[in-house]
């Protein structure tokens, strides 16, 4: 199935400046599968989003639809065809 992944401006250069990329994943895929697929084509974008243990970085949020994935099932959150997924960093600090 086809997922549109929206990219924040702070990471756009990792996708050649694109603010969204189209990602193909198998039917029944979850968010972790999507991020695995992204890693294959955009390895530096992938390591900006997840650490070496595969966890989302503390100040990186990934929304599935309108909900932040940590409030759903984390990276086990199932995806639906055509469902928007968005990376949104928390720009934190004093």
């Amino acid at each position, binding site marked *: 199935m086809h997922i549109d992944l929206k990219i924040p*401006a*702070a*990471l*756009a*250069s*990792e996708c050649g400046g694109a603010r969204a990329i189209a990602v193909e994943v198998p039917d029944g895929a979850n968010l972790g599968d999507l991020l695995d697929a992204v890693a294959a084509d955009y*390895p*530096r974008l992938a*390591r*900006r*989003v997840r*650490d*070496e*243990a595969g*966890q*989302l*970085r*503390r*100040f*990186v949020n990934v929304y599935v639809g309108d909900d932040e994935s940590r409030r759903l099932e984390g990276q086990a959150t199932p995806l639906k065809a055509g469902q928007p997924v968005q990376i949104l*960093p*928390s*720009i*934190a*600090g004093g």
Partner: protein
Amino acid sequence: MAYLVLIGTRKGLFTATSDDRRTWRLDGPVILDEDGFTAVAEIYAIGTDPDTGRILVGAATWFGPSIWRSDDYAATWSEPIEAPMAFPQDLPYRPLDFSETAGIDQPESDQTNTVKRIWQLTFGPGDRVWAGVEPTSLWTSDDGGQTFTFNRALWEHPEHTTWASGAGGPAVHTIVPDPTDPKTQTVAISSGGIYQTRDDGHSWTGITKGITVDYAPDETPDSGQCIHKVTRGTDGTLYTQSHGPAYRSTRPDGGWTDISANLPSKFGFAIVAHPTEAGTVMAWPVTASMERTPPDRQVGAWRTEDSGDTWQPWHNGLPTDPYFGGILRDGACTDAAPGDPGWYFGTRCGDVWAAADSDGRWHQVAAHLPDVLCVRAMETA
């Protein structure tokens, strides 16, 4: 001649250039990445290679830690596509303990080992680079800092159970190569001690015995001391500023000699050996563990030319008004310029000064920057 100073702060990297080390042109915050988020990165580590001019910068960002490289004296920067270092995921989890600042890339889970901050980048012979990392670990690169290998022998040293976290976080913060023996390196840990390898990292020996502590029941432990910095004199003498006194040792397995008697305080962080004059060392004491200001509120350095038996203030050119900013462990350095090395230091108030050894007078490089975490300098022409 021309000189470049690289200043790592709590909010980004700054650079300054000079032809005479008296008048400086400041630039920054320097954007290392293409999207600009490194302008607010924590810059804990800067490595410079005087032989090639290469610069490495370790930055902790919202998007994780990484290492940027410049081969044109900080004009342009590049970063590896793949992560330069990644913890083996088969290691038992080791708690991070506490940090003074939580960091902007704390792991999502507290049950995995992940690279949190890069504290030290040190060039060796050829393409060798070592990295000191939080959590407490040492990494080695043989491709100029593009990819690093985890040093399992140090991580698994039996004394690691005596290591804890300094207030800044648990890290290998100092790496001292031995220019006479490429297989010998000395590393320091806060808190943990000083360890030395003579077989290029395959095995490590604790060499901290004799350094005392005043914050534990056993005042003379074999390991676990809070070591703030180690520097190597050109004759091979090691100097260290601990959480307590400063020490020197010509043979660390034979013990350490307290060299704090003539310093204004036994406490401090930064200590830097002269690159060519044996016995000459600069130190930047702090009043006390419980008062992190310069002694007598006078910002300045202290200099010994007899291996620490006596020290003299080296304050010429610095403000005489009360000053409250301390100098962190990597907040001082020398450019090691042949013939006339320069000294540099930056403070937690965001001021940076430079002095040529022959001049003996400090000149302001920068003022009112963010909290200075590290300073490195090099001759560029």
